[in-house]
């Protein structure tokens, strides 16, 4: 219980997170497990309210799980009593987060130089302000903000959304993290600038070996960024399918994944108009306060089997190499052991 | 919800007491009312202990006074004081406190020190209506006018007169109400002599019979005119400014743009779409300010010698009439607490979003 699998750099095991008290108590994340290998990209995909951001915050250590464990480099982050583990500081700096809203993620009171030099000086990564400046300039170049003199002493409100996100990435890089959790990091950035930001982040993976947990609602972005990695699809607090990106994109197994992929419009008129649709039985997203019995997707699922899906909650089961699905029917068809 | 109701009906006896306590305490209405009661209790106790424990204990002061004025021996003076304060001074403080609370619950606020034989309650009943009348009228006028002007300002932001009106509003809202009262008195009443300030003193002219007669109504309005004008002037500024900013905010809402796109008439948009939503935050403010203006009436009623509760309080203060002071303060507190309570309930009535969330 206290040792993670050596395979993963960061691992979530049976994470559960509840919010609220008494009658309003909801389970935002319900038994989520996954691991990310060194240098890998894992993408969490799902609609708003599915618990992907909460999962991301637990991975970053900003939220304590109600139950379950997070392992970093094989060591448990929280002690069994829920205190910070012995290597918490290494973990804390090792996992950094990039937020969605470029307008809220930088302190409006500080200049870019101040924002970037503070962590460097605080953790003594540099000896003095001269070294700090050198490093800040280096970081700005890494994230593609050049010429640096145009940015160093600007305040965040003087930059565009895309530029701010780059500063956020640079700020995360100040402490040389091994894992970056990017929570919808590009969804508020304009289309023409989005790809530049994604490419820059991909370069970090290549050049610095950064490992990513990439959280998004946009399947196209997920596919683009995590093509060599894996995608986990979340629905109402749980992972329903977890597979390598090409597999998941081209051959989804879970009915929800199928529905999502079929529903996404494509930036290609012929392609998007000829796509096959999946007809759902209901449009209503279940409320966390009144979850359906059995499989949470069953009231909407086109493959619903009465007596099975509404009774028994499917587990996330392996259905082939590196591939998991939480669906009675899909698992049966794939011949998974039940 | 219905399933819960049914299950409680089916097996009522099995519910533990804790369940019912939880169910009652989680009820919005119950919670609000109990908080109000708690506040009143808290303030009453606070005053009780302050009066008893302060170095210049008013009872001691009164005993001294009796001894000096009437050269009574200490014991006699003490007995007399005790009877007036309706308190057994030999009893421990906790017993005194308990007695005091019991008396209060029976509506007994004690007797006035300075006019022995008159109960505090009688005095309050005689003076409070005038304050409620003048404060209520003042607030009603200033709220209505303020909301109207505030909305007009929000609509006519480009007009040349807008900064003048907004500026005046901001000046009015930042000057203390008694300063406004004095300025009115000095200029209108004395320097220019436009109004017969001496005749306007009091809450009504002596010799006029109360009743629904034209003479009486005219008279009470005549006497209330100056306090009311002061209340209006001292509160209208903040109504104007709040309504202006609230309206500007509402005008920027999507639903107003959509209402325009739907071709609704400007009149309908102004009232039902902009006005109603912009007024929501002001309604709570209005009810809360009723209580506070009652408190603030002390100074205004003094300036215009208007015989309301505030005037009575200030004379009780200067004559150190402790029981009366305590009683009036209690009444003022209750009026604030009550208007807060009403504000909470009424707001839900105006705003359906709260109605759903707040109701059980």
């Amino acid at each position: 219980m206290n040792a993670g699998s050596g395979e993963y750099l960061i691992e979530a095991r049976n994470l559960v997170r509840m919010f609220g008290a008494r009658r309003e108590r909801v389970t935002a994340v319900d038994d989520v497990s996954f691991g990310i290998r060194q240098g890998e990209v894992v993408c969490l995909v799902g609609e708003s309210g599915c618990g992907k951001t909460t999962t991301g915050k637990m991975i970053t250590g900003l939220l304590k799980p109600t139950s379950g464990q997070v392992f970093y480099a094989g060591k448990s982050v929280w002690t069994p009593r829920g205190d910070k583990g012995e290597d918490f500081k290494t973990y804390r700096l090792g996992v950094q987060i990039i937020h969605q809203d470029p307008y809220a993620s930088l302190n409006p009171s500080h200049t870019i130089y101040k924002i970037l030099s503070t962590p460097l000086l605080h953790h003594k990564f540099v000896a003095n302000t001269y070294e700090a400046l050198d490093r800040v300039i280096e970081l700005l170049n890494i994230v593609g903000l050049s010429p640096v003199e145009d940015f160093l002493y600007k305040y965040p409100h003087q930059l565009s959304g895309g530029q701010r996100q780059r500063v956020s990435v640079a700020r995360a890089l100040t402490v040389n993290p091994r894992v970056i959790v990017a929570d919808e990091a590009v969804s508020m950035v304009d289309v023409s600038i989005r790809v530049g930001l994604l490419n820059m982040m991909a370069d970090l993976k290549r050049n610095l070996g950064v490992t990513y947990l990439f959280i998004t609602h946009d399947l196209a972005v997920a596919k683009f960024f995590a093509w060599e990695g894996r995608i986990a699809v979340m629905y109402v607090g749980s992972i329903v399918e977890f597979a390598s990106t090409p597999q998941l994109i081209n051959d989804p197994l879970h009915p929800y994944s199928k529905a999502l992929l079929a529903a996404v419009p494509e930036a290609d008129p012929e392609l998007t108009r000829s796509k096959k649709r999946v007809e759902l039985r209901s449009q209503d997203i279940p409320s966390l306060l009144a979850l359906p019995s059995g499989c949470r997707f069953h009231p909407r699922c086109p493959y619903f089997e009465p007596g099975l899906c509404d009774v028994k909650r499917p587990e996330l089961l392996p259905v082939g190499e590196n591939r998991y699905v939480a669906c009675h029917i899909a698992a049966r068809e794939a011949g998974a052991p039940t | 919800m219905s399933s819960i109701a049914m299950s409680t009906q089916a097996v009522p006896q099995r519910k533990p007491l804790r369940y019912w306590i939880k169910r009652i305490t989680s009820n919005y209405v119950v919670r609000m009312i109990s908080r109000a009661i708690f506040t009143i209790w808290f303030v009453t106790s606070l005053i009780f202990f302050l009066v008893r424990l302060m170095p210049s204990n008013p009872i001691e002061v009164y005993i001294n006074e009796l001894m000096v004025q009437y050269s009574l021996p200490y014991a006699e003076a003490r007995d007399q004081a005790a009877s007036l304060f309706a308190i057994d001074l030999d009893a421990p403080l906790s017993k005194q406190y308990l007695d005091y609370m019991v008396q209060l619950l029976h509506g007994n606020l004690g007797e006035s020190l300075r006019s022995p034989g008159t109960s505090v309650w009688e005095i309050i009943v005689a003076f409070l209506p005038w304050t409620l009348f003048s404060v209520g009228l003042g607030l009603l006028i200033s709220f209505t006018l303020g909301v109207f002007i505030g909305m007009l300002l929000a609509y006519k932001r480009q007009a040349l007169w807008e900064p003048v009106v907004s500026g005046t509003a901001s000046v009015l809202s930042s000057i203390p109400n008694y300063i406004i009262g004095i300025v009115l008195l000095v200029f209108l009443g004395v320097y220019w002599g436009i109004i017969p300030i001496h005749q306007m003193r009091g809450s009504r002219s002596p010799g006029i019979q109360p009743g629904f007669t034209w003479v009486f109504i005219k008279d009470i309005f005549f006497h209330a005119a100056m306090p009311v004008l002061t209340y209006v002037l001292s509160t209208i500024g903040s109504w104007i400014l709040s309504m202006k900013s609230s309206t500007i905010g509402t005008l920027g809402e999507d639903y107003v743009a959509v209402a325009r796109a739907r071709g609704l008439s400007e009149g309908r948009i102004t009232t039902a779409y902009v006005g109603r939503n912009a007024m929501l935050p002001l309604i709570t403010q209005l009810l809360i300010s009723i209580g506070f203006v009652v408190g603030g009436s002390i100074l205004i009623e003094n300036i215009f010698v208007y015989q309301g509760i505030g005037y009575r309080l200030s004379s009780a203060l200067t004559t150190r009439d402790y029981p009366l002071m305590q009683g009036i303060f209690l009444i003022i507190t209750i009026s604030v607490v009550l208007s807060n309570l009403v504000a909470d309930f009424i707001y839900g009535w105006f705003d359906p979003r709260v109605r759903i969330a707040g109701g059980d």
Partner: protein
Amino acid sequence: MTTQALMPKTGIRYWPGRVLRGIGRFLKLMSRNKTGFAGFLIFIFFVLMTTVGTLFVPEVTKADINAIYAPPTWEHPLGNDSQGKDILSQIVHGGRDILQMALLTGIISTFIGVSLGSLSALIGGGFDAFLSMLADIWLTIPRFPLLAVLATLVKLDNMIYLALLLSVLSWAGLYRSIRAQVFSIKERDYIEAATALDLGMWHIIFSEVLPNMLSYIAISFTFGMTSAIYAQVGLVFLGLVPLTRNWGVMINLAWTQGAIFFKDSIYFIMAPVTAIALFQLSIVWMSRSLEEIFNPRLRTG
């Protein structure tokens, strides 16, 4: 370009120069809002009048029977009062108490409000629930009547006592707004980022949260001042506080001696009234500029 050239510009090396530059910047920012700047200038005028001004205008204690209600002359620019004393002198000397008390109350109440409000929001849990409930109750207590009642029980002749009492009575409103503000700042992403960067509690409070609350604190401070002036002058006017040499006392005197009902006494009564009104107004106006100064979004490099 060398790194050297990109170092933050400290420029002037000696502190007087830096202070001067700071004042210059402050004035420049202050003057951006015209109303606010006007308020600031009036405020400074009052401060100078009650400090430096007292050195130039002698305090008159002697009554002059020949000069009762004398209209303004060069010698007595604001005329004379009911005892023939110079009004200007009373205004100049009568403001210091009010000013000091207002500043003191502003500082103490802001301190209480900011510390309790931030602690409440940062610690949360039962502590926060308790304080919030207490504040809710406290807010419904009518402050001025309570103060008036208290004034009959305690001798409020000491300015510090009065300031303390006023602050204690007004903590709840400030507490509530500061708490809400800290709560909203606490939820912001950059605080989370600072937590993830392990910059420490102190850094987060003083470097990330506080700078964004300055405009709020400044407003709270001015609010504390205005309500202190309101209460103090009100108490003095009712004759409940045995203070001397005070604008409120002037009004009270004019009132109790019936001077208010003489046409001739217009200078006597209007001088302190105008002073109080103008001083209040200057603080309220000044708060607008302060709000802008401390708003980082309006800052440029």
